């Protein structure tokens, strides 16, 4: 029985244990890896990815995948760039418009998936290209800049010793963890991922729940984009695409099942940090960007493989227990 408990603790905290293992390995390679400055630096670099991942986690927990995230970010970014460069729009307005745009883009995806009765994956294969095209067209592939000090504070400011971006990302994670675990809306998301038809026949309004997921996805993708543009200082159509890959891999490493219905937000944070440390390590080892692509792709396949393996493995275990009962 005690054995079972240890097993359970290990399984529930797998992403954090992997993160710990990866960190220890890297602390040998690079002695100042565990310094406070480096830890804060890694957190700060990845705050925007974690923020985006919050939104995508809800989507994936409900059993769907959105491939257009990076292109949504690109479009939101250049919109802000245009507004600030052409109109000199103040930061509070920029933030509001970015959030509104994020929500609209992700609700367009949700709406199309609902109306056409196809998966979000299929819809976003189409919309990602559309969003990408719009982004390049309206920005004319130019770098857009002119952001003020207030905007730059989002990613570069500090509250005491802690970067502002890390602080608000931490807040977002806490709030959304509570939302997922303690509210009935959160349970409905798990219900959708667990068995969508059973959820519908249990009187859960599947359409409304999906629209709600779309709302949060758009919100957090927009917030993440704001943090990213603030970090980079300029907006360009090429900024954003690719993020979806890191985010989805991180979420899978974080214990969210590709079939939905399982996982925790805290695990996702660990998953993203695993990706970050590996990227950091590869950089230190002097691997080129393209070699890193290869490595990241393999990690993603490994994460999916492990997820599927766990599923089938569990099935076998279950079969044994039922046999025992009979």
């Amino acid at each position: 029985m005690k054995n079972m408990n240890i097993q359970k603790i290990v399984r529930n905290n797998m992403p954090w244990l992997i993160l710990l293992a990866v960190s220890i390995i890297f602390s040998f390679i690079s002695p100042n890896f565990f310094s406070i400055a480096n830890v804060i630096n890694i957190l700060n670099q990845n705050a925007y990815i974690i923020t985006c991942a919050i939104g995508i986690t809800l989507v994936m927990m409900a059993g769907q995948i959105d491939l257009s995230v990076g292109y949504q970010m690109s479009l939101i970014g250049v919109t802000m760039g245009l507004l600030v460069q052409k109109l000199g729009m103040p930061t509070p307005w920029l933030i509001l418009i970015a959030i509104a745009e994020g929500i609209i883009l992700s609700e367009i995806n949700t709406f199309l998936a609902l109306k056409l009765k196809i998966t979000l994956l299929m819809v976003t294969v189409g919309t990602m290209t559309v969003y990408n095209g719009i982004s390049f067209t309206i920005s004319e592939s130019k770098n857009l800049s002119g952001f003020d000090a207030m905007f730059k504070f989002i990613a570069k400011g500090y509250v005491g010793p802690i970067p502002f971006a890390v602080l608000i990302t931490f807040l977002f994670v806490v709030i959304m963890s509570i939302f997922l675990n303690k509210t009935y809306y959160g349970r409905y998301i798990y219900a959708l991922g667990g068995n969508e038809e059973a959820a519908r026949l249990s009187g859960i309004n599947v359409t409304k729940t999906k629209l709600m997921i779309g709302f949060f996805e758009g919100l957090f993708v927009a917030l993440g984009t704001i943090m990213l543009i603030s970090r980079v200082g300029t907006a360009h159509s090429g900024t954003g695409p690719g993020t979806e890959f890191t985010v989805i891999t991180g979420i899978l490493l974080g214990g969210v099942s590709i079939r939905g219905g399982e996982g925790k937000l805290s695990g996702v944070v660990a998953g993203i940090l695993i990706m970050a440390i590996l990227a950091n390590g590869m950089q230190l080892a002097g691997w080129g960007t393209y070699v890193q692509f290869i490595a990241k792709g393999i990690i993603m396949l490994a994460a999916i493989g492990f997820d599927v393996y766990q599923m089938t493995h569990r099935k076998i275990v279950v079969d044994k227990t039922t046999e025992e009962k009979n």
Partner: protein
Amino acid sequence: MDNAIRLDSIVKIYPGVKALDGVSFSIEKGHVHSLVGENGAGKSTLIKVISGAVVPDSGTIYVDEKSYSRMNPALSGELGIGVIYQEYNLVPSLSVLENVFLGYRVGGKFFPDTKKMRERLNEVMDRLDIRLDPDAMVSTLSVAEQQFVEITKSLVRNVKVLIMDEPSATLSNKDVDKLFDVITHLKEEGVTVIYISHRMEEIFRISDDVTVMRDGKHIFTGPISEVDTHSLITMMVGREISETYPERHSPIGEAVLEVEHLYGNGDRDISFVLHKGEILGLAGLVGAGRTELAKVLYGAVPKEKGIIRVKGKEVTFRNPEDAVACGIGLIPEDRKGEGAFLNYSILWNSVIMALKKDARGIFVDDKKMEKKAEELSKTFQIKAPSLEQLVRNLSGGNQQKTVLAKTFAADTDILIFDEPTRGIDIGVKHDIYKLMNEIAERGVSIIMISSEMEELIGMSDRILVLHEGDMMGEVPKERFDSRYILKLASGIKEE
């Protein structure tokens, strides 16, 4: 007398059910042999044993008097046994010709000999008097024509025994006539046909012989001339209804659900009234439209026209959420696919429909939910080491109880049970009956869909009979008689 197929003491046991219990009979060559029995009598398992889709636990299958302990699909194909299932095995986007020769090579190793194929197809169609354009896409054909493609497909492969599972279920009367012409031609060709149908008049029209199955046992085999509708139905239903159903003492109250001239989801002109504390049975054969009616009543499929009144108030449900809000609950037939969340715990499952109702703002009241789940698991006698147990790991009976608890937790007082005891062990079935009675005594009204006549008669206060989407009648308790109900369900409306 030449036998095409002879079965000797075939036994097939599934967990908890003896699907085939020592079945022995023979099928004469060149005859049309009908196979009849109620749902669950073992007909499907039997044809799967013959076609090789199911391996029997014991017994011998003789094909042309050669003995086999088991079949497999490849072997049965070689021996000339073909099956046409209710769900056709056709590729809609390919032509008739391509479908007929799918997986059957004519010509060289790489390039099919289309000319030869065409000749062979035309020859077979001529023999059967079937008129189809070989180049027509299958998706453009009618259901009857698609069936002819299936038959042609079998014949091209030199089939000697053709098994047809409910071939007429989806056909109009005119198409059935055409089908029978083709079957007559098949007979002339010397093909043995095993014909499965629920429709009595068809069986008498087309068969030479008939075999009756009941509860996995072989009851009768003989020439069709030896039986009539009455004796066939008596053999299908068999024993008198045993008194194993728990008694219920619930006063039947006012009308809670009134349905008037309801159309939708394939059902036509359904009218009935359900009273408080009553159990209304819904009888019918496969495809009668019972589950379809349940889905309309539950808002899972929109109604086309007609009136539904709940507690005197007219309602229109846009989705199940609306139905649940009016106190209607559904316990679906497909427990694992539509009822339970298998990867979550009993606790999680049993309160999911109560979360919103008992929430503080948007927050789940976890303590209250835990208490509620404990009460529910006591009321519904869910047997598990703890409430944290995943529903996936429960037995069928306990899964069903969990789904029942979940639905009940939403304060529903009109419950629709779709096949409540399907796949549940006999001992646990009784528990489910008792639970249904208990909640009826608490004032819950129940609609029970069941394919088991005995269960329907044992549990219901009244029985509504459907046949292919039409309401055949409403049978009051004093007229409960399985033969009468089965006749109505078969579409025979006479006194």
